[in-house]
């Protein structure tokens, strides 16, 4: 299934806009949410092909969102792939917890829009 629709949950305006812009240029259908609550609602309302999820978010942390979506008995987003965006200083525990429910793990400082596109294409090919 080719990735077409993408939800970005990211509170940093510069970084959010940067991803939205480059992903839209690359032909994806992109929604962008800034806080954790809105992000969770958006993820449940529409079956996105891919969710880019920041960890440090206002209202609700990325790890909590992921837990709400996939931590229960039923996977609420069976059609979506999840890429977690994080800072380097993530503690190990939450990293392992999130890895279980996510398809990938990207360190923000290492990722540029073109690298992100390459990663998405790679996910698509899997």
């Amino acid at each position, binding site marked *: 299934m080719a990735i077409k629709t993408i939800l970005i949950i990211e509170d*940093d305006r*510069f*970084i959010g806009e*940067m991803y939205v*812009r*480059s992903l839209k*240029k690359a032909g994806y259908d992109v929604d962008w949410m800034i806080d954790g609550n809105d992000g969770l609602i958006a993820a449940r309302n529409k079956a996105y092909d891919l969710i880019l999820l920041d960890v440090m978010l206002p209202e609700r942390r990325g790890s909590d969102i992921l837990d709400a979506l996939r931590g229960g008995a039923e996977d609420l987003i069976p059609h979506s792939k999840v890429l977690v965006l994080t*800072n*380097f200083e993530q503690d*190990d525990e939450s990293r*392992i917890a999130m890895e279980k429910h996510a398809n990938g793990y990207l*360190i*923000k*400082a*290492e990722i*540029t*829009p*073109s*690298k992100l596109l390459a990663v998405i294409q790679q996910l698509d090919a899997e």
Partner: protein
Amino acid sequence: MSQPPKLANDFWRSYRCSVVTLIVITEGVMLGATGAFLYYASFFQSHLLAAITILLIQLIVSVLSFLLLYRSISRPFNDLMAAVIHVSGEPTTTTPPNPNTPRYAHNGFRDVLQTVYQLASNDQTTPLKAGSSTTTSPQEFITSALDETSTGFVIMSKGRRIVYANKVAPVDIDQDGASHLSLIFNGKDTLDAWLAECEKSAVHAEHTWTRIANKLPEEENRRFFDVMASYSKGTVAEVVITLADRTSTYINSEQDLDFIAFAAHELRGPITVIRGYLDVLQSELDGSLADDQVELFHRLTVSANRLSGYINNILNTSRYDRRHLKMHPIETTAAAVYDTIRDDMLMRASAQNRLLSVAIPNDLPAIAADPASMSEVFGNLIDNAIKYSNEGSAINVTAAVKGDFVEVSVEDHGIGMPGNVVSNLFQKFYRSHRSRETVAGTGIGLYISKAIVESHGGSIGVRSEEGRGSTFTVSIPTYASVADKLKSSDNSNEGLIDQGNGWIKNHSMYRG
């Protein structure tokens, strides 16, 4: 049957007694001899009164002279004994002689007495109690002297058991009562590793470590030592460790780094945005820019990436020193790791007019590496190769498999280094005299590269010739050789760190 301890006091009493007896006997013999002479000379018959007078006079004169002599000869000796008895703490009724009496000041005996008192007062740490006859041993004297110094001394017997440590030595005692040196060595170059090597193959050996802390950053009473160890197999003090406290020298640069790391943290956000938007702009403007404008973009990107690399070095060093640097090795290949930085490196090389040729075969065995960290190592080495070579020169990156390791080499044809520089190269903040003058840098790039590589269970080395160039080689374990260890430690590098016996011995190469 136990004998009461012999006291100096007793000796003096009996000695005095025997001297007096000797005098009395001598006195009698002399008197007898004179009497006998007078008798045989028939002096008694002719002048009885005169003979008796002579004998009487002789008796009086000799008794008086003996008394005078005895007094003048025995007096200093008497006082000396009294002083010794006094400082040795034996029970005595005499008062200690006063060296400041005018007579002693006059004849110089004062110095003798003062020497005795001084010797006694130098050793106040072991005051002798009345009734005990113990005197200060040289060992106690040395022990108290060592406790006064600011240099740590630790002595280990066979089996690395600490048998002596002076006060300032950084030694911890665990709940079982065993002493341990609390020193935080960097990477594989630890005291224990060195001792293990010595026990295997050395009779006498010496080794020095610089800038070794006893505690992690932010812990109290953190001190830095230059540690010197000497090993002599089979002796009582098999290992002698000297720890020169160099805290005052090293603490400034450490505190500077702490602050810079704090600042670098804040720089990461903006630099991520700058790199991201440069990326966006470059792809959006693709085709619409003139060649020289593209070059300007390249320079922006190269500079932003270098800045990002330096920030990573600082943050990683700070994490490593706090033992927070974690690796998450995965199954990957040297080529794949290099791919993540290839564009950046090619751009960097071409912007600085170097010919970067990279030949990492795709069919090399998979390695166990944390791609982000390992790409930083490659980046650091290539960055150094650019820095320390001349415009237009070639930089070759190659890779080959050697046993359970994949070796990646970065070769430049630049200024190279003399041997004495090479041995210090991987030390924190190390900058050679010449590089300090000619090339900008922080002196932590190689330090953190070594830390990262060793955290993978690998090693880093350099071969260099002054004026001809340098070759840095990184050995990374193949995934197959460490897969079991990785799985058992939940894919963290912890299982790898202690694995040091797979090193490839190559004596022409310095292992950092």
